């Protein structure tokens, strides 16, 4: 095939792909005037949704980082039997359909669920509360953080840890003073991606938490509700989400570009993902 023709075909494929992916995003902004969009953003529905989303996602992200970081460090730095299995289990929510995740959460923590009785006795009801939203978001977003965190810790030259130990730092101090700073870039990128995924969560949330305005109705759920009632409102919230998601993606790129100032050696284990 002639060189020019081949390159032309490649360019054509790219153009079609880019156009297809870009059109829906552009349409959101072009369908309604900016003035009307801003107007709708001030509505009760939009503001409630924003509040619920921010609160639940902040808590979810906090939990993900709090539990995910030490987990990732253990998986990245120790070899043990069944390690591969554990990593696969932690990645499961990535491939699980969100609706399935929602049902799973319901039968695990809901009123009639596995732990339902225990939670009831403790006076805690999870299903269809804000706690449920936090659970749903945490469930679907954590693999995004944990996978990246494992890779981030793995990419740190293990001689750094050896050096710290010979300088008198025990395993805990080594983690805090050497591992965290050196993996910091990767950890931030992972947190950003998890946050972005959490913002967009719909399936698991609607099944486990329902869509109660001001309580469990997140931004995604609000779009779905407003969509056949007030398209403009739905568009306004969507536009906002596009901008926020775009900003997150951009910041991840910027941080990743700075991250390789760490000297690296081949990771101890095969990269998980």
């Amino acid at each position, binding site marked *: 095939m002639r060189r020019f023709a081949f390159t032309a075909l490649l360019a054509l494929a790219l153009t079609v792909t880019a156009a297809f992916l870009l059109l829906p995003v552009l349409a959101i902004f072009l369908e309604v005037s900016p003035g009307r969009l801003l107007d709708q953003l001030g509505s009760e529905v939009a503001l409630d949704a924003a509040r619920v989303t921010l609160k639940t996602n902040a808590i979810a992200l906090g939990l993900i980082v709090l539990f995910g970081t030490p987990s990732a460090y253990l998986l990245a730095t120790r070899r043990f039997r069944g390690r591969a299995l554990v990593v696969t289990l932690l990645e499961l929510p990535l491939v699980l359909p969100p609706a399935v995740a929602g049902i799973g959460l319901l039968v695990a923590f809901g009123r009639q669920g596995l732990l339902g009785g225990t939670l009831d006795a403790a006076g805690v009801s999870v299903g269809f509360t804000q706690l449920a939203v936090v659970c749903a978001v945490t469930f679907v977003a954590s693999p995004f953080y944990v996978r990246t965190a494992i890779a981030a810790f793995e990419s740190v030259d293990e001689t*750094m840890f*050896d050096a710290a130990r010979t300088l008198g*730092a*025990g395993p805990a101090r080594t983690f805090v003073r050497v591992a965290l700073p*050196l993996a910091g870039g990767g950890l931030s990128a992972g947190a950003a991606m998890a946050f972005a995924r959490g913002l967009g969560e719909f399936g698991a949330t609607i099944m486990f938490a329902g869509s109660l305005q001001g309580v469990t109705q997140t931004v995604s759920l609000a779009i779905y509700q407003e969509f056949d009632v007030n398209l403009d409102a739905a568009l306004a919230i969507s536009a906002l989400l596009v901008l926020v998601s775009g900003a997150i993606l951009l910041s991840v790129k910027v941080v990743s570009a700075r991250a390789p*100032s*760490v000297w690296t050696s081949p990771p101890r284990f095969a990269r998980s993902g």
Partner: protein
Amino acid sequence: MAGLARPDAGRIRLGDDVWFDASRGVNRPPEERPVGYVFQDYALFPHLRVRANVAFGGNGRADDLLERFAIAHLARARPRDLSGGERQRVGLARALARDPDVLLLDEPLSALDAHTRSSVRLELREVLRELALPALLVTHDFEDAVVLADRIGVLLDGRLLQLGSAAELVDSPADPFVASLTGGNLLPGHARPVANGLTAVVLEAGGTVLSTEAGSGRVGVVVQPWEVTIARTATSDESALNHLPGVVASLFPVGNRVRVRVGPLTAEVTAASADRLELAPGEPVVASFKATAARLVPLRD
């Protein structure tokens, strides 16, 4: 030694202080062993500046050490902006910050380019002398070992082949590996005792060589290059008993000397002599050495 790897068996102690004892289940973690470790690539923390690196082990001696190693002007520099020699000094300073009882150096010169190696090597020798600290140095380069160490141990496949001064290793290698490591010629052959208390070795490469050492069976004859003389013709009117005729295969100048390869032997002569004898590849010559210079090491069959 540092506790970063766990041996299957054995004991590690410094004086009466036992750091590891397989039979009694003692295994002190690295952070509790009083060692200073300089890593092969120095392993400086990239996210900390030089001063913070040196101060990592604590103890408040950072500034003194920076002065001592003449790197105080680099205190606020980042490791990635330093030259190889500077990194080594930071690595050393950092390792000494905790006032260790033993210094461990892992191939301290291999991360340097050829140009800086010899000057840094001499600097390192001075530092080690001044510190008067027991130091264990790992290297693949025999020359480094000769310059830096008081005693040299040769390890092969986990076994200690020989432990001694550089002179002992060169003069009396205990093993063919040690002989080749020190740069000596190694000629395999078969030995048997002959008259006058000498040993004759029939070389696999051809010819027979006499040695004043005792030996039998399969042996390697070890001769140092500077003990081999080159002549145009063989003479029996001299004390050297071993004459191996051959053809000059190659000449390799090293400073004011020339390494001449004749058959299986490498001889080292002065450049002046090489010129005077008009040595060139292809020229027929005789390589000679004394029976007293021929060492014998046992070879595996």
